[in-house]
């Protein structure tokens, strides 16, 4: 798989930059196929993910436990580099993984918590209740996930937390335009 020889490079040199082109090193992995030969790798992967989903509830529970433990350390020992990092990583992992695990509203609440940790000028000045409400909400959303009608409540809870967090962050970042820009700007991530 890995090449044993260096690539053949074509280098065009201009005034202040070079454009370097190499023969597509991955071209042997590409096949042109007709519609009939089309192998639906995406469908196969989605099926594999579905089979894996039996474990998602356990994974989500363990991520929540990790977040709760990180919050306990913050609330008892205060913020330092280690406890802040631990809380952020726990929230960040829920933000990134919860939707895949079937808990998109927990991801939304975790994103709000991540924004507080990232953009508050001083975490020691953030009301601890604001953080606690986020942690409690994430746990509740996960715990009550299967109950009928919980989606609307969870959506309202996540939206309310995000609103409170954004209001707080906008207020404390008035003299930090680089943070304000991020807080107020929409996601520009490319869609599927």
């Amino acid at each position: 798989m890995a090449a044993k020889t260096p690539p053949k490079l074509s280098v065009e040199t201009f005034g202040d930059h070079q454009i370097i082109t190499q023969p597509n090193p991955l071209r042997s992995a590409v096949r042109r196929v007709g519609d009939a030969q089309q192998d639906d790798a995406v469908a196969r992967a989605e099926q594999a993910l579905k089979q894996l989903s039996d474990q998602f509830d356990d994974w989500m529970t363990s991520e929540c436990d990790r977040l709760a433990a990180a919050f306990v350390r913050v609330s008892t020992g205060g913020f330092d580099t280690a406890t802040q990092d631990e809380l952020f990583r726990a929230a960040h992992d829920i933000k990134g993984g919860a939707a895949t695990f079937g808990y998109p509203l927990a991801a939304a609440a975790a994103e709000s918590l991540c924004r507080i940790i990232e953009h508050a000028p001083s975490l020691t000045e953030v009301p601890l209740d604001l953080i606690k409400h986020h942690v409690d909400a994430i746990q509740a959303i996960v715990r009550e996930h299967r109950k009928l009608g919980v989606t609307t409540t969870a959506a309202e809870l996540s939206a309310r937390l995000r609103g409170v967090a954004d209001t707080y962050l906008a207020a404390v970042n008035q003299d930090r335009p680089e943070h304000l820009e991020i807080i107020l700007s929409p996601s520009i991530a490319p869609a599927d």
Partner: protein
Amino acid sequence: MYSIDFNKLRFLISDDNAHMRRILRTLLHSFGAREVNEAEDGATALEMFIHYVPDILITDWAMPIFDGIELTQMIRQPNGSGNPFVPIILLTGHCDKRRVMTARDAGVTEFLAKPISAKALYQRILNIVVNPRPFIRTKIYFGPDRRRNTSNTYIGPERRNNGQAEIIQQPALLDKARAPR
């Protein structure tokens, strides 16, 4: 239509979250990949990158020791010990404009926002394999061409000064089909 022989591609996943690594590995194996290596932090990823010489690196942004951006910057060294041209997919929940531009300017090839989906991952890999972009080297940047499209309506600053083009042919050939394993 194009199809990818995933079993001809070698992947390296770098993510500190074991659940996310499991998801990625499951997706890649389902696509048909056989060689998928994993690292749980940036330092291990760099070691494995040099040792395993992956065809495609998929890395998280936030990781211990050094993050996905730092990892990308270390790999995108024209005279580094690994393959500086390796396609890098940055997997992240950071989707604001400043972060995306930071990733682009570090030399990331593709940006994949969480939550991850099979379709989105497949499309990023397809784009890398079928439509590789040339690399640009300037005094402050080495990485894939950040101009994916030409636009007649572009009104931003022109960062490239054109001059006399010179073609420099380098010896040797990378051909995965014929390369000994």
